[in-house]
């Protein structure tokens, strides 16, 4: 019984870490427009919409978060192993170093992407580089710290047999994938496309026509993140937190039944409930907020 309580307590802590990581991840990707909007930010100067938005194309979010979290956890592991320092401190140092590494890659990506299309007249703004990069590093630090902490808990207390840098990489990839899919409210409510009708998708004729102006002055990445902090960030946090919590919860509680198959069946039922719920939500949103155009042949 006591073991179960410890497991469930750890699980709650891991869920909390995942929630924080998810929220930080989404905002971090908004600072650099690494997510969905990246293709549009890249395309905008080509259709005449020069902008002051950061273009951080390090690689896809899943790979980016894989390397951020794996290096944070591995450095933490190495420092703890070599100097026997406290794991919390070791992970903090690891996360700091890997967040700075991530920031360095972000700057080279920003400069590279703009030089790669210099004929379209998009200038490199040094103030954008100098003010947005620290925000990217700060949010990357939060995400890396949370993911590596929770991978450590997963390995040390829940007893997952993999070494925890590998767990950190896998969960980093999952966080990136989730942030890429869930948090991006870009194509609907994100500010870049707010003046497009709901559900229009992004027609080719609208591609690259991002919004250049903000409430005061010219829109930049910090405004985009400031807008997404309201819905996109918490949404990704809830998404990742729920994934971690529900998945491990059903594992810990139901693993004892039916020779281990109990956990499988519980997982299947949870996935089914989610699938039906999502479909109902989607249909409701389409009918309520339309106009949704029928496909034309």
């Amino acid at each position, binding site marked *: 019984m006591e073991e179960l309580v410890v497991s469930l307590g750890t699980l709650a802590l891991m869920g909390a870490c995942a929630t924080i990581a998810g929220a930080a991840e989404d905002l971090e990707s908004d600072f650099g427009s690494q997510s969905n909007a990246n293709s549009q930010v890249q395309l905008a100067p080509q259709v005449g919409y020069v902008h002051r938005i950061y273009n951080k194309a390090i690689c896809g979010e899943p790979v980016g978060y894989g390397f951020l979290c*794996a290096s944070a956890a591995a450095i933490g592991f190495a420092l703890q192993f070599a100097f026997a320092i406290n794991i919390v401190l070791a992970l903090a140092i690891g996360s700091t*170093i890997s967040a700075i590494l991530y920031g360095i890659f972000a700057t080279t990506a920003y400069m590279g992407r703009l030089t790669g299309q210099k004929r379209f007249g998009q200038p490199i703004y040094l103030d954008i580089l100098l003010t947005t990069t620290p925000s990217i590093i700060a949010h990357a630090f939060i995400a890396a710290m949370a993911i590596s902490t929770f991978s450590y808990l997963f390995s040390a207390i829940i007893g997952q047999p993999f070494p925890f840098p590998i767990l950190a990489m896998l969960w980093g990839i999952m966080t990136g994938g989730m942030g890429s899919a869930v948090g991006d409210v870009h194509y609907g409510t994100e500010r870049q496309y707010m003046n497009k009708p709901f559900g229009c998708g992004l027609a080719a004729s609208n591609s690259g026509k991002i919004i250049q102006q903000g409430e005061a002055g010219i829109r930049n990445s910090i405004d985009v993140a400031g807008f997404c902090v309201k819905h996109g960030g918490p949404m990704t946090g809830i998404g990742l937190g729920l994934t971690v919590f529900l998945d491990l919860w059903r594992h810990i509680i139901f693993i004892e039944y039916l020779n281990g198959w109990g956990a499988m069946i519980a997982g299947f039922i949870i996935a089914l409930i989610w699938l039906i719920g999502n479909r109902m939500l989607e249909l409701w949103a389409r009918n309520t907020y339309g106009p949704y155009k029928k496909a034309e042949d």
Partner: protein
Amino acid sequence: MSEHKDMSWNTLAAIGMIGGLLAIYIAYFVNNAMDVAYGSFIGAIGAIFAIVWGADAVRQICKYGIGTGVPSIGMLAFGMGLLTTILGLKIGDYTGIVLAGPVLALVLSLIQGAIIGYIANGVLKMKIPTMQIGMIFIAGSASLILMAFSTVMAGTFEYGAFMTDIIGTGFIAPLFILGALPILHPFNACLGPDENQKRTLTLAVESGFIVTVIFGILSIALVGLAPAAITIVLGLIAWVFGYLSYWNRVKECGVVIKDTGLLPARED
């Protein structure tokens, strides 16, 4: 454009293979002959050769408009390279000829790349002219990068050390993904109609050095503080030069660089 002065990818492949293998072997001999780990950093030099080769191969494949596929190509390279590297090193270990390991690993990777390249072009009908050779090249460079950075971290490329020090500790995770980054990031970051080989490969070298610093930090746990410190300090110094020369390439390419300012007026 820049086409006429580009280095051919065959030249880069030769430099990458010879330089990469040579550096790995020198690091191994220095470490074994003196029974120390101070030579580990030499492995990183081999990694840089292999990175330049791999980054150029990724560039040549992805120039055919695989826009969002650049990171995937890098991951694919390392998936191919990791399996054959382990196999090659294992054969070296099994037959007792440890020194044959890296060469075998490289050869097996090239063969694996050829098979997968054939599947991509011949069976899946992707019809990308550079795919066949490109696959061979990225698999080979990934294999060399894996062995070179494992030499940096563990001081050797022996199969036993690879399994316990790299895979057993979980350092394979950063090795896989951070190793892939210097070959996929340069073209992914620099792509566009005004991309040029010199700038992209400068970025590859810069990325290689910063990643070396991280592997240097990880090697503290495996080879001890002093050999790790050599890798970290040399890596940092080289990275500063790499970053500055990339910045110079950016400046000299003619893009407008402003401290701050409003948007330029539209000309139309």
